C-alpha cells in the first residue's frame, strides 16, 4: 500500500534533513503507529504520504514514494486526496464550514461529486462515525473529541484507502482522546482501511496496533516492526512497558491485563502473592503529606462562582503551602480553570474568600496580584508577542514597574530555563516545549511565591515533560508553592505532593497522591491499576519496593536488575 524508499527531505533553509534515508513498507489494512520524540519528523513523514510535503512546504526531497500506486511527489496533494484522508493535530484549525454535515461535504464538493451521491456519502460517513445525531450541530458547540471525530468523518468522505492522523489527540483531554482512539479501533473493524497514526499516548492504542514505527530523529535509522519488538528498543515508553523492561517481562505487556498475568506468573514462579491488599501504604516520598507544608501560601475558603445561572464552583476549599506542589485534577468543565482565574482576580467569586500569604485578594487588581502569583495559561502562544525571548521577560518587568530592580536577573532565569542560546530568537519560531518555557519565564521573572499552571504539558513529549518536572522541583526547593491543573495523571504521580480532585465544581477528594489517585478509576495511573491497593503510582515506586529475590530465573533472561520480589512477604 505504502512504499517509501530511501526518502530524504529537508525543509527550505533547513541545514540538516528532517528525514534521512527512510525506508518503510506498509501493507494494506495495517494499523500503524508512528512515534518518536518531537522534532524527529513524524509530521513530515505523514505529510509525504499525501504530497503536502513537498507541494505545500517547499524544500528538497529525494528518494521514492509510492502510495496506493500513486506518486504523491509527482501528482500532488489534490490527486492524493482521493486515496489518503488526513486528520490534523489541532481540531480548531481544520474546519472550513459551520456545521457537521457541511464540513463533511466539503471534500465532496471539491471533487464535484453529484448532489445525490453526495447526500448518500454524507449519510454513510455520519453513520460510520456515529455522528448522525450531531449532523446539524455548529462545530463550535462540539467537544474536542467530537470535533476530531468530525475531522475523521470529513477525511473519510472521499472513501480513501488510507487514513493518516497526525497526533489527533495531543490537544484533547484524556476522555476525548479515548473517544477518538476507540473510534479508530472501531473503524478498523468496520471498513477496509490502512491507518497511520502518530501519537504520544501509546498506552491506549498499543494493543490494537499491527506495526510500530519509531522515528529516532537526528539522522538515526527508523525502526519499524511488531510493536513488542520495537518497544524493547525505545528509551522512553509508557510506564507499563518501562516496568516490563525493568523486570524483563517477555513478551512485553501492552495492556494492564497482560501485565497482571505476567506479574502473576512471575509471582507464581517465585511463590508470591501480589493482588493482596497491602496492609499499610509503603512509606514513600508521599508520606511527607500536608503536615510538612504548615505555612500556607494560598488558602481558598468556601469559594463559589457562577456564570449566570450556571454554578461552576461550589464551596471549594483548597490550600497550597510553601514549597508544595498541589495537583488539581478533574474532568473537563469541572471548574479547574475557573478556580485559577478567581485566584488571580480575573473573576470575582460570588462567595468565599481567597487568602494569599494571609491577606485577602478580594478587590485587588490582577496586575498587582501577579507580582506574587505567576499564572501560566493553557496556551503559551497567548502570551508571546515580543520580537525576542529576552524581551518577553523584560515586558513583564516593565508592565509591573520592576525594570530597575528585577527580582530575578532575566539572564539567569534564561539559563535556568535552558533558553540562553535562543535569547535573541523570535519566540514563535521555537518548539512547543521551548515556547512553553519562554511563557514560564515571562510569568516567573517576578519571582512569584505562588505558581499556577494550567495544563502545562499539553502537546509535550516525554523529554519536555521531564524537563518541566525538573524546573518545578527547583522552584519548590526555593519555597515556591505550585498549583498544577492537569489531565496528565502520570505527571501528577511523578511530581505532586498533594492531589485535589474537583468534580462538578466541588472538591471531592484532597490528600496525598496515592489514595486520591488510586481510588478514582478515571485518574488511576497504570501502575496503580496494575497493583491495586498497593499505593504505588510510578514505575519508580514499584521498583523501589521490590526487594531482590535470591534466585528467580524469569522468562529465561537474567540480569542483576531482574531479580525482585514483591513486598509483603
Amino acid at each position: 500500500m505504502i512504499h517509501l524508499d530511501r526518502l530524504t527531505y529537508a525543509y527550505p533553509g533547513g541545514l540538516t534533513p528532517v528525514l534521512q534515508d527512510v525506508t518503510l513498507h506498509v501493507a494494506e489494512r495495517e494499523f500503524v503507529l508512528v512515534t518518536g520524540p518531537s522534532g524527529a519528523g513524524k509530521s513530515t513523514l505523514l505529510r509525504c504520504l499525501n504530497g503536502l510535503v513537498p507541494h505545500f512546504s517547499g524544500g528538497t526531497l529525494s528518494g521514492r514514494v509510492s502510495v496506493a500506486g500513486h506518486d504523491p511527489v509527482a501528482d500532488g496533494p489534490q490527486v492524493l486526496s482521493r486515496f489518503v484522508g488526513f486528520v490534523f493535530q489541532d481540531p480548531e484549525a481544520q474546519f472550513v464550514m459551520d456545521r457537521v454535515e457541511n464540513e463533511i461535504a466539503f471534500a465532496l464538493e471539491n471533487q464535484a461529486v453529484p448532489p445525490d451521491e453526495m447526500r448518500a456519502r454524507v449519510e454513510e460517513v455520519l453513520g460510520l462515525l456515529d455522528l448522525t445525531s450531531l449532523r446539524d450541530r455548529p462545530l463550535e458547540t462540539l467537544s474536542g473529541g467530537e470535533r476530531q471525530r468530525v475531522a475523521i468523518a470529513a477525511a473519510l468522505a472521499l472513501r480513501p484507502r488510507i487514513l493518516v492522523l497526525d497526533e489527533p489527540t495531543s490537544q484533547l483531554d484524556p476522555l476525548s482522546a479515548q473517544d477518538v482512539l476507540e473510534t479508530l479501533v472501531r473503524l478498523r473493524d468496520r471498513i477496509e482501511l490502512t491507518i497511520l497514526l502518530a501519537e504520544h499516548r501509546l498506552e491506549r492504542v498499543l494493543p490494537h496496533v499491527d506495526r510500530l514505527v519509531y522515528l529516532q530523529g537526528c539522522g538515526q535509522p527508523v525502526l519499524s516492526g511488531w510493536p513488542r519488538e520495537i518497544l524493547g528498543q525505545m528509551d522512553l515508553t509508557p510506564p507499563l512497558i518501562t516496568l516490563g523492561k525493568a523486570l524483563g517481562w517477555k513478551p512485553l505487556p501492552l495492556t494492564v491485563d497482560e501485565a497482571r498475568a505476567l506479574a502473576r506468573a512471575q509471582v507464581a514462579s517465585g511463590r508470591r502473592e501480589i493482588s493482596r491488599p497491602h496492609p499499610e501504604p509503603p512509606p514513600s516520598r508521599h508520606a511527607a503529606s500536608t503536615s510538612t507544608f504548615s505555612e500556607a501560601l494560598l488558602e481558598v475558603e468556601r469559594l463559589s462562582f457562577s456564570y449566570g445561572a450556571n454554578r461552576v464552583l461550589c464551596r471549594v476549599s483548597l490550600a497550597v503551602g510553601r514549597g508544595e506542589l498541589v495537583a488539581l485534577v478533574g474532568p473537563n468543565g469541572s471548574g479547574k480553570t475557573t478556580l485559577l482565574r478567581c485566584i488571580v482576580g480575573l473573576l470575582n467569586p460570588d462567595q468565599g474568600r481567597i487568602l494569599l500569604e494571609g491577606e485577602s485578594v478580594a478587590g485587588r487588581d490582577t496586575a498587582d496580584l501577579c507580582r506574587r502569583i505567576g499564572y501560566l495559561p493553557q496556551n503559551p502562544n497567548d502570551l508571546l508577542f515580543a520580537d525576542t525571548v529576552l524581551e518577553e521577560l523584560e515586558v513583564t518587568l516593565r508592565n509591573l514597574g520592576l525594570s530597575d530592580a528585577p527580582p530575578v536577573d532575566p539572564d539567569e532565569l534564561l539559563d535556568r530555563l535552558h533558553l540562553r542560546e535562543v535569547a535573541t530568537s523570535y519566540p514563535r519560531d521555537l518548539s512547543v516545549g521551548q515556547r512553553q518555557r519562554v511563557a514560564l519565564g515571562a510569568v516567573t521573572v517576578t519571582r512569584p511565591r505562588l505558581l499556577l499552571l494550567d495544563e502545562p504539558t499539553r502537546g509535550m513529549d516525554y523529554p519536555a515533560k521531564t524537563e518541566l518536572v525538573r524546573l518545578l522541583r527547583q522552584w519548590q526547593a526555593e519555597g515556591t508553592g505550585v498549583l498544577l491543573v492537569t489531565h496528565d495523571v502520570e505527571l501528577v504521580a511523578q511530581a505532586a505532593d498533594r492531589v485535589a480532585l474537583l468534580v462538578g465544581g466541588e472538591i471531592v477528594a484532597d490528600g496525598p497522591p496515592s489514595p486520591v489517585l488510586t481510588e478514582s478509576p478515571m485518574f488511576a495511573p497504570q501502575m496503580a491499576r496494575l497493583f491495586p491497593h498497593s499505593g504505588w503510582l510510578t514505575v519508580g515506586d514499584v521498583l523501589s519496593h521490590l526487594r531482590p529475590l535470591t534466585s528467580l530465573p524469569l522468562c529465561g533472561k537474567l540480569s542483576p536488575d531482574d531479580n525482585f520480589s514483591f513486598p509483603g512477604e
Partner: protein
Amino acid sequence: MRRVISIAIYALCAAIGLLAFLYPFLLPSTPKAPTAMAHSQDAPLTTAALVGLSVTALLVELQGQAISAKTVAMLGVLVAITSVLRFIEVVVPLPGGVSLVFAPILLCGYVFGARFGFLMGAFTLLASGLVTGGVGPWLPYQMFAAGWMGLSAGWLGGIALVRGKSSHRVRGLGRRELTLLSVFGFGWGLLFGAIMNVYFWPFATGPANQAWSAGASLGEALARYGAFYLATSLGWDVARAVGNVALILLLGAPTVRALARFRLRFHFEVHPRA
C-alpha cells in the same frame, strides 16, 4: 494583452463607482427635468444594482488568477480577525466613526498586494456585515469602498517596494512609509464616509427630489449635499480618519512586521527530487 484588459476592467469599475458617486449632482443640471424626474424614482435602486454588478465583475477578475488554498485560508482568518475587531467597537465605545477595521485592510493590502487588499476589504465588510446583521442594499457600496481601499493600499505598497529595497519589509515600516500610510489612511477615512453618504443620499432625499424638480443647479445640489454631509457625517468621518492615522502610527510597524515575517513562510521554493 491580459494586463491591458485587466486595467480596463479596473478603470471601468472605477468609472461606474464615480458615476454612482456623482449622478445625484449631475442629474438636476440636465435641462430635461422631466426625464430626471422619471428616472429619479428608480435611480437609487439602479445605482445599487450597478455598483453590485461592478463589485461582482471585479471579484471575478481578481479571483480569476487562481487563488491558492493558502491565500483563501489566510484571507478567511484575517477577515475573521478584522471582523472581531468590529465587535470590539461595540464593547469598547470608540469616539465618532472610528473603526478598527480599516487599518488592517490598509496594512494587509500594503503588505500582500493589491489583489489581496481588494479581496480583504470586500470580504471583511461582507463577513462582518453578515455577522452583525448588516446585510442590506448598502452592502455593495461598503464592499466597493473597502475593496478599493485595500486595492489602492496594495498599489501604494507596490510603489514603495519598487522604490525601496524589498528586504526592508522584514524589519517593518520605515518612518517615511509610515507617514505615507497614515496620510493614506486619513484620506480613505474621509472618502469612505463620503461614498457611504452617496449611497444614503438618494434614499434620504426621496425619489423625486423637490430641489431637482424646481430646476435647481448643480451648485445648489452640491450645497445641499454639503449640508447633509456636515450634519450627518463630517464629524464621524474626521474621527474615523484620525482614528486610522492613530492606529497606523501606533500599531502599523509591529503589525507589518508580523505580517511580513509570515509572508516569508508564505512564499517558498520547491525542489522536488534534488
